[in-house]
């Protein structure tokens, strides 16, 4: 049986990879995918902790995260498709109408 720490380190690695991806990548869809990776890192932590604590709460929270992820994907992709129709690009840096 793999110890809890192994699961947690893996989840931390996934979460961090997701964060790095969000910050580093410029394509909006890849950024979405990286956000999914962050959520999955959290999910893994929930499942591992839940099993360790002998509590089903961890698994149930993951269900809700999946519902949220599905809803987010629908909205996010709708926004990207909308922008793509106007702009023919999904590059985050092309978002320059609103200057910083």
């Amino acid at each position, binding site marked *: 049986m793999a110890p809890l720490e192994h699961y*947690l380190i893996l*989840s931390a690695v996934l*979460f961090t990879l*997701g*964060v790095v991806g*969000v910050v580093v990548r410029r394509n*909006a869809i890849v*950024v*979405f995918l990286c*956000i999914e990776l*962050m*959520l999955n*890192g*959290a999910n893994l*932590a*929930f499942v*591992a*902790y*839940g099993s*360790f*604590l002998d*509590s089903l*709460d*961890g698994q149930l*929270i993951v269900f*809700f*995260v999946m519902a*949220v992820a599905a*809803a*987010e994907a629908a*909205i*996010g992709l*709708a*926004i*990207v498709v*909308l*922008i793509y129709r*106007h*702009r023919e690009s999904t590059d*985050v840096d092309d*978002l320059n*109408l*609103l200057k*910083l």
Partner: protein
Amino acid sequence: MTIPFPQIHWAYLLPVLLVVGGAVFVLMWDAFFPQRERSFLVTLTLAVLASALGASLAAQPGSEAASMGGMYLYDGFTRFVFALILLSSFFSVLLSAAQRSLEEVPAGDYLGLILFATSGMMLMAATRSLLMVFVGLEIFSLALYVLAGFLRGQPEGNEAALKYFLLGSFASGFLLYGMALIFGATGSVDLMEIAQRLTTSPPSRSPAFLLGLGFVVVGLGFKVAAAPFYMWTPDVYEGSPTAVTAFMSVGPKVAAFAAFFRLLLAVGPRAGAELDAILWVMAVLTMTAGNVSAIWQSNIKRMLAYSSIAHAGYILVALAAVRRGSDLATGSFLFYMLVYALMNMGAFCVVVAAGARGEERTRIEDYAGLGYTRPALAAAMALFMVSLAGIPPTGGFVAKFYLFSAAVKVGFVWLPVIAVLNSVVSVSYYLRLVVLMYMREPGEAPARPGLLGPGWSYALAALVLAAAGVLNFGIFPSSFFELALRSTLLLN
């Protein structure tokens, strides 16, 4: 296996049910009777919000107010926050009806999404469970992402929607991972159980718990636009339709601050000095960044965005005082949110009303000479600016006074001083607008005043309501402050 039917306190749940039911009804009505007048749907939505407000004021919180095992919590705090959220939705519906560029959009979808967002905010504020905080936050965030890009032909709006979405979901990722760490450290996502675990077994104040708490603070900090997570705010506020911007600047902040508040109340007394330092730094950075950046803005929506960041900083001062266990701070926090909602909504309403079809007046220069061309509108704007700056005899002054004195009472010295200095800085950009309106000749007059559009009555109603509220709270604050203080009786 039998599953018992849960005990449901319908009276407590009624405000949320009314809003959700209203959303579905508005959508359905628009789908089946699309030829009806838009004003009917607006009136219907306003009626839904008003009845939900009535229902929440009528439901007296009792001892059995924790429904569904703490997933839904109806106490005095919830009641006050519900009133705030419903008030801000009410205003934003009025503003939406008055805004000319929103006349062509499908009213059912738009109003339905406003109501869904409202329900999400209410659910997020009325819970003890971090899971419900997460789900409620997602409901209103998703609705607001769509509302930000609702004018699909406008590239700025689309961009605002994407930026808001990317940063918002990034932040919810942090919130979720923080929840996972807290769950691991304490075995629960229920704030009451977490608080109990922290008292009974101090080892659960482990690194995992502290980092989890930090991540949750990051996630909520994004939503309230606190430094250093406020970068998205000016862009999103500028690009969104003005009525939606007004909603964003009040509703989500109320909900997220309410959740933040419950979190602090649960873990605050036990999580100790680390949180104190974090809140202190966040408050100072937020108000300073907001006020200093606001000075240089040439777009009024961006200026109001930075101003709302600054106000989030002041509210963080109240939260820092709440962490030290001050009931006075809680009361002044609620009172501040109430006044902030009114004056901010009022200011955005002037922006909406000053615009004409197709050309919104978003540059600050556009307001030159407004005192001569539209004296009533300029007077209202001057009132809201004076209140936002915190000058008597307006509500803004009283609210700031209560808030900063609460901070002094719990032993903060430098924090209130810095906050007052910040208020002084903020006077410069608020009054610059007033000076511009009255001391400068108008530029070329707008071809056609926007207020004469079909939505003028809505704008008028919103302006009168907001102005009356701001003045009333400035001159007779005590009764409402008492109410805010009494609302701080909590169940956990």
